[in-house]
Protein backbone atom coordinates (compact mmCIF):
# COMPACT_ATOMS: atom_id res chain seq x y z
CA UNK A 1 0.00 0.00 0.00
CA UNK A 2 2.76 2.42 0.91
CA UNK A 3 4.82 1.28 -2.06
CA UNK A 4 2.34 2.64 -4.58
CA UNK A 5 2.00 5.92 -2.65
CA UNK A 6 5.78 6.27 -2.48
CA UNK A 7 6.11 5.43 -6.17
CA UNK A 8 3.58 8.09 -7.18
CA UNK A 9 5.21 10.68 -4.90
CA UNK A 10 8.63 9.90 -6.36
CA UNK A 11 7.39 10.14 -9.91
CA UNK A 12 5.51 13.41 -9.38
CA UNK A 13 8.44 14.96 -7.57
CA UNK A 14 10.78 13.98 -10.37
CA UNK A 15 8.42 15.55 -12.91
CA UNK A 16 8.14 18.68 -10.78
CA UNK A 17 11.92 18.94 -10.46
CA UNK A 18 12.23 18.87 -14.23
CA UNK A 19 9.94 21.88 -14.33
CA UNK A 20 11.15 23.98 -11.46
CA UNK A 21 9.81 27.15 -13.07
CA UNK A 22 6.29 26.10 -12.09
CA UNK A 23 7.19 25.78 -8.43
CA UNK A 24 9.08 29.03 -8.40
CA UNK A 25 6.34 30.98 -10.17
CA UNK A 26 3.72 29.86 -7.64
CA UNK A 27 6.08 30.85 -4.86
CA UNK A 28 6.69 34.27 -6.36
CA UNK A 29 2.96 34.72 -6.86
CA UNK A 30 2.62 34.21 -3.10
CA UNK A 31 5.41 36.69 -2.36
CA UNK A 32 4.05 39.32 -4.74
CA UNK A 33 0.46 39.09 -3.52
CA UNK A 34 1.60 39.42 0.08
CA UNK A 35 3.85 42.37 -0.78
CA UNK A 36 1.02 44.17 -2.56
CA UNK A 37 -1.05 44.49 0.61
CA UNK A 38 1.20 46.94 2.48
CA UNK A 39 1.33 49.03 -0.69
CA UNK A 40 -2.44 49.11 -0.84
CA UNK A 41 -3.10 49.61 2.84
CA UNK A 42 -0.25 51.78 4.05
CA UNK A 43 2.92 51.16 6.02
CA UNK A 44 1.60 51.52 9.62
CA UNK A 45 3.13 48.61 11.56
CA UNK A 46 0.13 48.40 13.92
CA UNK A 47 -2.30 47.87 11.06
CA UNK A 48 0.00 45.48 9.20
CA UNK A 49 0.56 43.33 12.27
CA UNK A 50 -3.20 43.01 12.62
CA UNK A 51 -3.71 42.12 8.97
CA UNK A 52 -0.71 39.82 8.51
CA UNK A 53 -2.30 36.45 9.41
CA UNK A 54 -5.27 36.96 7.13
CA UNK A 55 -3.24 38.35 4.25
CA UNK A 56 -0.66 35.59 4.40
CA UNK A 57 -3.30 32.88 4.60
CA UNK A 58 -5.44 34.24 1.77
CA UNK A 59 -2.32 34.53 -0.39
CA UNK A 60 -1.39 30.95 0.54
CA UNK A 61 -4.86 29.72 -0.51
CA UNK A 62 -4.55 31.47 -3.86
CA UNK A 63 -0.99 30.25 -4.44
CA UNK A 64 -2.02 26.64 -3.75
CA UNK A 65 -4.94 27.04 -6.12
CA UNK A 66 -2.60 28.18 -8.87
CA UNK A 67 -0.95 24.79 -9.26
CA UNK A 68 -4.08 22.68 -8.73
CA UNK A 69 -5.24 22.41 -12.37
CA UNK A 70 -1.91 20.78 -13.24
CA UNK A 71 -2.36 18.08 -10.63
CA UNK A 72 -4.14 15.75 -13.06
CA UNK A 73 -4.22 17.66 -16.35
CA UNK A 74 -0.80 16.61 -17.70
CA UNK A 75 -1.34 12.98 -16.80
CA UNK A 76 -4.77 13.14 -18.37
CA UNK A 77 -3.44 14.58 -21.60
CA UNK A 78 -0.77 11.95 -22.21
CA UNK A 79 -2.89 9.04 -21.05
CA UNK A 80 -0.93 8.26 -17.88
CA UNK A 81 -4.01 8.83 -15.78
CA UNK A 82 -5.92 6.09 -17.57
CA UNK A 83 -3.04 3.69 -17.02
CA UNK A 84 -2.99 4.61 -13.34
CA UNK A 85 -6.74 4.04 -13.15
CA UNK A 86 -6.30 0.63 -14.79
CA UNK A 87 -3.49 -0.34 -12.41
CA UNK A 88 -4.33 -3.02 -9.84
CA UNK A 89 -3.94 -0.53 -6.99
CA UNK A 90 -6.92 1.46 -5.75
CA UNK A 91 -7.05 4.83 -7.49
CA UNK A 92 -7.55 6.48 -4.10
CA UNK A 93 -4.02 5.51 -3.05
CA UNK A 94 -2.60 6.90 -6.27
CA UNK A 95 -4.42 10.16 -5.60
CA UNK A 96 -3.12 10.16 -2.02
CA UNK A 97 0.39 10.04 -3.45
CA UNK A 98 -0.38 12.85 -5.87
CA UNK A 99 -1.86 14.97 -3.07
CA UNK A 100 1.24 14.49 -0.92
CA UNK A 101 3.48 15.31 -3.88
CA UNK A 102 1.43 18.41 -4.61
CA UNK A 103 1.82 19.52 -1.01
CA UNK A 104 5.58 18.94 -1.07
CA UNK A 105 5.84 21.07 -4.18
CA UNK A 106 3.35 23.84 -3.38
CA UNK A 107 2.55 23.86 0.35
CA UNK A 108 5.94 23.21 1.87
CA UNK A 109 7.75 26.06 0.05
CA UNK A 110 5.02 28.45 1.22
CA UNK A 111 5.58 27.42 4.83
CA UNK A 112 9.32 27.96 4.45
CA UNK A 113 9.02 31.42 2.90
CA UNK A 114 6.11 32.60 5.11
CA UNK A 115 8.25 33.62 8.12
CA UNK A 116 10.36 35.88 5.90
CA UNK A 117 7.22 37.61 4.68
CA UNK A 118 5.92 37.70 8.25
CA UNK A 119 8.93 39.77 9.25
CA UNK A 120 7.87 42.34 6.66
CA UNK A 121 4.61 42.57 8.57
CA UNK A 122 6.44 43.11 11.85
CA UNK A 123 5.24 39.88 13.48
CA UNK A 124 6.85 38.72 16.73
CA UNK A 125 8.97 35.56 16.89
CA UNK A 126 6.17 33.59 18.53
CA UNK A 127 3.74 34.64 15.83
CA UNK A 128 6.24 33.76 13.09
CA UNK A 129 6.73 30.29 14.53
CA UNK A 130 2.99 29.82 14.81
CA UNK A 131 2.50 31.07 11.24
CA UNK A 132 5.02 28.56 9.89
CA UNK A 133 3.48 25.77 11.93
CA UNK A 134 -0.05 26.66 10.89
CA UNK A 135 0.83 26.80 7.19
CA UNK A 136 2.78 23.56 7.54
CA UNK A 137 -0.16 21.80 9.19
CA UNK A 138 -2.93 23.43 7.19
CA UNK A 139 -1.74 23.31 3.59
CA UNK A 140 -2.05 19.50 3.20
CA UNK A 141 -5.80 19.99 3.71
CA UNK A 142 -5.74 22.52 0.88
CA UNK A 143 -4.03 20.04 -1.43
CA UNK A 144 -6.52 17.34 -0.44
CA UNK A 145 -9.67 19.41 -0.91
CA UNK A 146 -8.18 20.94 -4.04
CA UNK A 147 -7.65 17.48 -5.55
CA UNK A 148 -11.43 16.96 -5.54
CA UNK A 149 -11.94 20.20 -7.45
CA UNK A 150 -9.10 19.42 -9.85
CA UNK A 151 -10.57 16.00 -10.57
CA UNK A 152 -14.09 17.37 -11.07
CA UNK A 153 -12.97 20.06 -13.51
CA UNK A 154 -10.56 17.81 -15.40
CA UNK A 155 -10.64 18.57 -19.10
CA UNK A 156 -13.36 21.23 -18.90
CA UNK A 157 -13.21 24.57 -20.65
CA UNK A 158 -12.51 27.40 -18.24
CA UNK A 159 -11.40 24.79 -15.75
CA UNK A 160 -9.15 27.11 -13.76
CA UNK A 161 -11.80 29.70 -12.91
CA UNK A 162 -14.37 27.00 -12.26
CA UNK A 163 -11.93 25.26 -9.96
CA UNK A 164 -11.57 28.34 -7.77
CA UNK A 165 -15.35 28.69 -7.66
CA UNK A 166 -15.70 25.12 -6.40
CA UNK A 167 -12.75 24.93 -4.07
CA UNK A 168 -12.48 28.33 -2.36
CA UNK A 169 -15.75 28.00 -0.37
CA UNK A 170 -14.51 24.65 0.91
CA UNK A 171 -11.20 26.24 1.96
CA UNK A 172 -12.92 28.59 4.39
CA UNK A 173 -12.51 26.43 7.54
CA UNK A 174 -8.76 26.09 6.89
CA UNK A 175 -8.48 29.85 6.41
CA UNK A 176 -10.39 30.53 9.62
CA UNK A 177 -8.36 28.23 11.84
CA UNK A 178 -5.06 28.94 10.12
CA UNK A 179 -5.34 32.69 10.45
CA UNK A 180 -7.00 32.22 13.84
CA UNK A 181 -3.96 30.39 15.20
CA UNK A 182 -1.67 33.31 14.34
CA UNK A 183 -4.24 35.86 15.52
CA UNK A 184 -4.56 34.12 18.86
CA UNK A 185 -0.77 34.10 19.27
CA UNK A 186 -0.55 37.80 18.46
CA UNK A 187 -3.28 38.44 21.03
CA UNK A 188 -1.35 36.36 23.57
CA UNK A 189 -3.96 33.61 23.86
CA UNK A 190 -1.95 30.76 22.38
CA UNK A 191 -2.95 29.15 19.11
CA UNK A 192 -2.64 25.48 20.06
CA UNK A 193 -6.41 24.94 19.94
CA UNK A 194 -6.56 26.27 16.42
CA UNK A 195 -3.60 24.13 15.41
CA UNK A 196 -5.37 21.02 16.71
CA UNK A 197 -8.46 21.83 14.67
CA UNK A 198 -6.27 22.53 11.66
CA UNK A 199 -4.59 19.15 12.08
CA UNK A 200 -8.03 17.54 12.36
CA UNK A 201 -9.04 19.15 9.06
CA UNK A 202 -5.82 17.99 7.45
CA UNK A 203 -6.16 14.40 8.58
CA UNK A 204 -9.83 14.28 7.65
CA UNK A 205 -9.20 15.66 4.18
CA UNK A 206 -6.13 13.48 3.58
CA UNK A 207 -8.21 10.48 4.59
CA UNK A 208 -11.37 11.18 2.62
CA UNK A 209 -10.55 13.60 -0.18
CA UNK A 210 -8.39 11.19 -2.26
CA UNK A 211 -11.28 8.73 -2.47
CA UNK A 212 -13.74 11.43 -3.51
CA UNK A 213 -11.18 12.64 -6.08
CA UNK A 214 -10.74 9.09 -7.34
CA UNK A 215 -14.50 8.82 -7.84
CA UNK A 216 -14.45 12.16 -9.69
CA UNK A 217 -11.55 10.99 -11.86
CA UNK A 218 -13.46 7.85 -12.78
CA UNK A 219 -16.40 10.02 -13.85
CA UNK A 220 -14.05 12.18 -15.93
CA UNK A 221 -12.39 9.17 -17.55
CA UNK A 222 -15.62 7.44 -18.58
Amino acid at each position, binding site marked *: MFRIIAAVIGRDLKLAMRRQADIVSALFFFIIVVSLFPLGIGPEPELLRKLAPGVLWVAALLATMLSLPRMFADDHRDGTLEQLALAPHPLGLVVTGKVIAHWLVSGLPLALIAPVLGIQFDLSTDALLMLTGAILIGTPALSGIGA*IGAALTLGLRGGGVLLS*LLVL*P*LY*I*PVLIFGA*GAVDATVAGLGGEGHLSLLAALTFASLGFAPWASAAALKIAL*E
Partner: protein
Amino acid sequence: MKDRFNLYRFASPATFYPFAGALIPYFVAVSILFGLAGLWLGMLVAPTDFQQGEGYRIIFIHVPASWMSMFIYLVMAGWAAIGLAFNTRLSGMMAQALAPTGALMAFLSLLTGALWGKPMWGAWWVWDARLTSELILLFLYIGYMALTAAIDDARRADKAGGLLLLVGVVNIPIIYFSVKWWNTLHQGSSVNLAKSSMATTMLWGMLLMAMCFWMYSIAIALMRVRTIMLERERHTDWVKAELLGKAGDEK
Protein backbone atom coordinates in the same frame (compact mmCIF):
# COMPACT_ATOMS: atom_id res chain seq x y z
CA MET B 1 -52.24 2.86 -13.83
CA LYS B 2 -54.57 -0.08 -13.48
CA ASP B 3 -51.85 -2.32 -12.12
CA ARG B 4 -50.28 -2.10 -8.68
CA PHE B 5 -48.74 1.27 -7.88
CA ASN B 6 -45.02 1.00 -8.60
CA LEU B 7 -42.69 3.79 -7.59
CA TYR B 8 -39.94 2.67 -9.93
CA ARG B 9 -42.21 3.29 -12.88
CA PHE B 10 -41.62 6.99 -12.40
CA ALA B 11 -37.86 6.68 -12.50
CA SER B 12 -38.15 6.80 -16.27
CA PRO B 13 -38.45 10.26 -17.82
CA ALA B 14 -41.09 9.07 -20.25
CA THR B 15 -43.49 8.20 -17.43
CA PHE B 16 -42.41 10.94 -15.05
CA TYR B 17 -42.95 13.73 -17.59
CA PRO B 18 -46.76 13.47 -17.78
CA PHE B 19 -46.94 12.62 -14.05
CA ALA B 20 -45.04 15.80 -13.18
CA GLY B 21 -47.22 17.76 -15.55
CA ALA B 22 -50.31 16.49 -13.79
CA LEU B 23 -48.93 17.32 -10.34
CA ILE B 24 -47.81 20.90 -11.06
CA PRO B 25 -51.30 22.56 -10.95
CA TYR B 26 -51.99 21.04 -7.52
CA PHE B 27 -48.71 22.25 -6.05
CA VAL B 28 -49.26 25.72 -7.53
CA ALA B 29 -52.77 25.86 -6.10
CA VAL B 30 -51.69 24.66 -2.66
CA SER B 31 -48.76 27.08 -2.68
CA ILE B 32 -51.09 30.02 -3.47
CA LEU B 33 -53.53 28.93 -0.76
CA PHE B 34 -50.79 28.64 1.87
CA GLY B 35 -49.26 31.89 0.67
CA LEU B 36 -52.52 33.82 0.97
CA ALA B 37 -53.22 32.35 4.41
CA GLY B 38 -49.65 33.00 5.56
CA LEU B 39 -49.59 36.57 4.29
CA TRP B 40 -52.99 37.29 5.84
CA LEU B 41 -51.85 35.90 9.18
CA GLY B 42 -48.45 37.51 8.98
CA MET B 43 -49.34 40.94 7.66
CA LEU B 44 -52.77 41.56 9.17
CA VAL B 45 -53.34 39.31 12.16
CA ALA B 46 -49.95 38.93 13.84
CA PRO B 47 -49.39 41.57 16.53
CA THR B 48 -46.89 44.39 16.12
CA ASP B 49 -43.59 43.58 17.77
CA PHE B 50 -43.00 45.80 20.79
CA GLN B 51 -39.31 46.24 19.95
CA GLN B 52 -39.13 46.14 16.19
CA GLY B 53 -42.50 47.63 15.23
CA GLU B 54 -43.93 46.65 11.86
CA GLY B 55 -40.54 46.13 10.27
CA TYR B 56 -40.17 42.66 11.70
CA ARG B 57 -42.88 41.39 9.32
CA ILE B 58 -40.20 40.71 6.72
CA ILE B 59 -39.50 37.64 8.86
CA PHE B 60 -42.39 35.94 7.07
CA ILE B 61 -40.32 35.97 3.88
CA HIS B 62 -36.86 35.83 5.41
CA VAL B 63 -37.14 32.77 7.62
CA PRO B 64 -38.97 30.52 5.13
CA ALA B 65 -36.46 31.49 2.43
CA SER B 66 -33.55 30.60 4.71
CA TRP B 67 -35.13 27.31 5.69
CA MET B 68 -35.81 26.40 2.07
CA SER B 69 -32.30 27.36 0.95
CA MET B 70 -30.83 24.86 3.42
CA PHE B 71 -33.49 22.24 2.88
CA ILE B 72 -33.19 22.32 -0.91
CA TYR B 73 -29.43 21.72 -0.67
CA LEU B 74 -30.10 18.66 1.46
CA VAL B 75 -32.74 17.41 -0.99
CA MET B 76 -30.30 17.93 -3.88
CA ALA B 77 -27.64 15.99 -2.01
CA GLY B 78 -30.20 13.26 -1.37
CA TRP B 79 -30.96 13.06 -5.10
CA ALA B 80 -27.23 13.06 -5.81
CA ALA B 81 -26.73 10.12 -3.45
CA ILE B 82 -29.58 8.21 -5.08
CA GLY B 83 -28.23 9.04 -8.52
CA LEU B 84 -24.69 7.90 -7.73
CA ALA B 85 -25.83 4.77 -5.91
CA PHE B 86 -28.50 3.53 -8.32
CA ASN B 87 -27.34 5.25 -11.50
CA THR B 88 -30.79 6.67 -12.20
CA ARG B 89 -31.18 9.35 -14.83
CA LEU B 90 -33.98 11.21 -13.10
CA SER B 91 -31.97 11.98 -9.93
CA GLY B 92 -29.43 14.16 -11.68
CA MET B 93 -32.17 15.99 -13.52
CA MET B 94 -34.01 16.65 -10.25
CA ALA B 95 -30.85 17.95 -8.58
CA GLN B 96 -30.21 20.29 -11.50
CA ALA B 97 -33.81 21.42 -11.55
CA LEU B 98 -33.69 22.29 -7.86
CA ALA B 99 -30.40 24.20 -7.94
CA PRO B 100 -31.63 27.56 -9.31
CA THR B 101 -34.53 27.59 -6.83
CA GLY B 102 -32.15 26.87 -3.98
CA ALA B 103 -29.83 29.64 -5.09
CA LEU B 104 -32.80 31.98 -5.40
CA MET B 105 -33.87 31.14 -1.84
CA ALA B 106 -30.36 31.74 -0.51
CA PHE B 107 -30.23 35.05 -2.36
CA LEU B 108 -33.69 36.06 -1.11
CA SER B 109 -32.68 35.18 2.40
CA LEU B 110 -29.59 37.39 2.15
CA LEU B 111 -31.51 40.22 0.50
CA THR B 112 -34.37 40.25 3.01
CA GLY B 113 -31.81 39.87 5.78
CA ALA B 114 -30.04 43.01 4.55
CA LEU B 115 -33.30 44.91 4.22
CA TRP B 116 -34.27 43.81 7.71
CA GLY B 117 -30.85 44.45 9.18
CA LYS B 118 -30.59 48.06 8.05
CA PRO B 119 -33.44 49.46 10.19
CA MET B 120 -32.97 46.99 13.07
CA TRP B 121 -29.21 46.76 13.50
CA GLY B 122 -28.28 49.87 11.55
CA ALA B 123 -26.17 47.96 9.03
CA TRP B 124 -26.92 46.23 5.75
CA TRP B 125 -24.44 43.53 6.47
CA VAL B 126 -22.75 42.21 9.59
CA TRP B 127 -20.33 39.28 9.68
CA ASP B 128 -22.67 37.25 11.80
CA ALA B 129 -22.21 33.49 11.69
CA ARG B 130 -25.60 32.85 10.13
CA LEU B 131 -25.25 35.50 7.45
CA THR B 132 -21.77 34.32 6.56
CA SER B 133 -22.78 30.69 6.29
CA GLU B 134 -25.80 31.62 4.19
CA LEU B 135 -23.45 33.50 1.86
CA ILE B 136 -21.19 30.46 1.63
CA LEU B 137 -24.24 28.33 0.88
CA LEU B 138 -25.00 30.66 -2.02
CA PHE B 139 -21.41 30.18 -3.23
CA LEU B 140 -21.88 26.41 -3.08
CA TYR B 141 -25.06 26.65 -5.16
CA ILE B 142 -23.29 28.82 -7.71
CA GLY B 143 -20.33 26.42 -7.83
CA TYR B 144 -22.68 23.50 -8.46
CA MET B 145 -24.51 25.33 -11.23
CA ALA B 146 -21.25 26.50 -12.83
CA LEU B 147 -19.85 22.96 -12.79
CA THR B 148 -22.92 21.34 -14.34
CA ALA B 149 -23.15 24.12 -16.92
CA ALA B 150 -19.50 23.65 -17.93
CA ILE B 151 -19.87 19.94 -18.68
CA ASP B 152 -21.47 19.22 -22.03
CA ASP B 153 -22.10 15.53 -21.49
CA ALA B 154 -25.28 15.38 -19.44
CA ARG B 155 -24.46 12.12 -17.68
CA ARG B 156 -21.04 13.35 -16.62
CA ALA B 157 -22.56 16.65 -15.49
CA ASP B 158 -25.02 14.76 -13.29
CA LYS B 159 -22.38 12.57 -11.73
CA ALA B 160 -19.75 15.26 -11.22
CA GLY B 161 -22.38 17.63 -9.84
CA GLY B 162 -23.67 14.88 -7.57
CA LEU B 163 -20.21 14.24 -6.19
CA LEU B 164 -19.73 17.96 -5.57
CA LEU B 165 -23.07 18.08 -3.75
CA LEU B 166 -22.07 15.20 -1.50
CA VAL B 167 -18.70 16.81 -0.75
CA GLY B 168 -20.52 20.06 -0.03
CA VAL B 169 -23.04 18.47 2.28
CA VAL B 170 -20.24 16.90 4.34
CA ASN B 171 -18.54 20.27 4.51
CA ILE B 172 -21.55 22.38 5.44
CA PRO B 173 -21.50 21.52 9.15
CA ILE B 174 -17.71 22.04 9.26
CA ILE B 175 -18.04 25.40 7.55
CA TYR B 176 -20.95 26.39 9.77
CA PHE B 177 -19.16 25.64 13.02
CA SER B 178 -15.87 27.17 11.89
CA VAL B 179 -17.68 30.36 10.92
CA LYS B 180 -19.52 30.32 14.23
CA TRP B 181 -16.32 29.96 16.24
CA TRP B 182 -14.56 32.52 14.08
CA ASN B 183 -17.37 34.92 14.77
CA THR B 184 -17.34 34.48 18.54
CA LEU B 185 -13.55 34.78 18.60
CA HIS B 186 -13.29 37.88 16.49
CA GLN B 187 -16.08 40.02 17.86
CA GLY B 188 -18.47 39.97 20.72
CA SER B 189 -21.89 38.88 19.58
CA SER B 190 -23.26 42.30 18.77
CA VAL B 191 -26.21 40.73 17.08
CA ASN B 192 -28.60 38.52 18.91
CA LEU B 193 -31.17 36.89 16.73
CA ALA B 194 -32.69 34.87 19.53
CA LYS B 195 -35.99 36.24 20.62
CA SER B 196 -37.41 35.83 24.07
CA SER B 197 -40.70 34.48 22.90
CA MET B 198 -42.68 34.42 19.73
CA ALA B 199 -46.40 34.97 19.48
CA THR B 200 -48.30 31.91 18.30
CA THR B 201 -49.79 33.76 15.35
CA MET B 202 -46.30 34.76 14.20
CA LEU B 203 -45.15 31.17 14.35
CA TRP B 204 -48.18 29.99 12.42
CA GLY B 205 -47.73 32.69 9.83
CA MET B 206 -44.13 31.63 9.40
CA LEU B 207 -45.02 27.96 9.10
CA LEU B 208 -47.71 28.72 6.54
CA MET B 209 -45.28 30.81 4.51
CA ALA B 210 -42.71 28.02 4.76
CA MET B 211 -45.30 25.60 3.37
CA CYS B 212 -46.05 28.09 0.59
CA PHE B 213 -42.34 28.33 -0.32
CA TRP B 214 -41.99 24.58 -0.10
CA MET B 215 -44.89 23.91 -2.47
CA TYR B 216 -43.66 26.67 -4.78
CA SER B 217 -40.21 25.06 -4.91
CA ILE B 218 -41.70 21.66 -5.76
CA ALA B 219 -43.90 23.15 -8.48
CA ILE B 220 -41.11 25.18 -10.06
CA ALA B 221 -38.64 22.29 -9.83
CA LEU B 222 -41.12 20.00 -11.56
CA MET B 223 -41.61 22.57 -14.31
CA ARG B 224 -37.87 22.88 -14.72
CA VAL B 225 -37.29 19.14 -14.69
CA ARG B 226 -39.85 18.79 -17.48
CA THR B 227 -37.89 21.17 -19.69
CA ILE B 228 -34.63 19.42 -18.81
CA MET B 229 -36.22 16.10 -19.77
CA LEU B 230 -37.40 17.42 -23.13
CA GLU B 231 -33.95 18.81 -23.84
CA ARG B 232 -32.05 15.69 -22.85
CA GLU B 233 -34.41 13.15 -24.34
CA ARG B 234 -35.01 15.03 -27.56
CA HIS B 235 -33.82 12.07 -29.63
CA THR B 236 -36.46 9.73 -28.18
CA ASP B 237 -39.83 8.88 -29.62
CA TRP B 238 -41.88 10.00 -26.66
CA VAL B 239 -40.46 13.52 -26.77
CA LYS B 240 -41.12 13.76 -30.48
CA ALA B 241 -44.68 12.54 -29.92
CA GLU B 242 -45.07 15.01 -27.05
CA LEU B 243 -43.84 17.95 -29.08
CA LEU B 244 -45.89 16.94 -32.10
CA GLY B 245 -48.94 16.63 -29.89
CA LYS B 246 -48.40 20.14 -28.56
CA ALA B 247 -47.90 21.54 -32.02
CA GLY B 248 -51.13 19.78 -33.03
CA ASP B 249 -53.02 21.39 -30.15
CA GLU B 250 -51.95 24.82 -31.17
CA LYS B 251 -53.19 24.46 -34.74
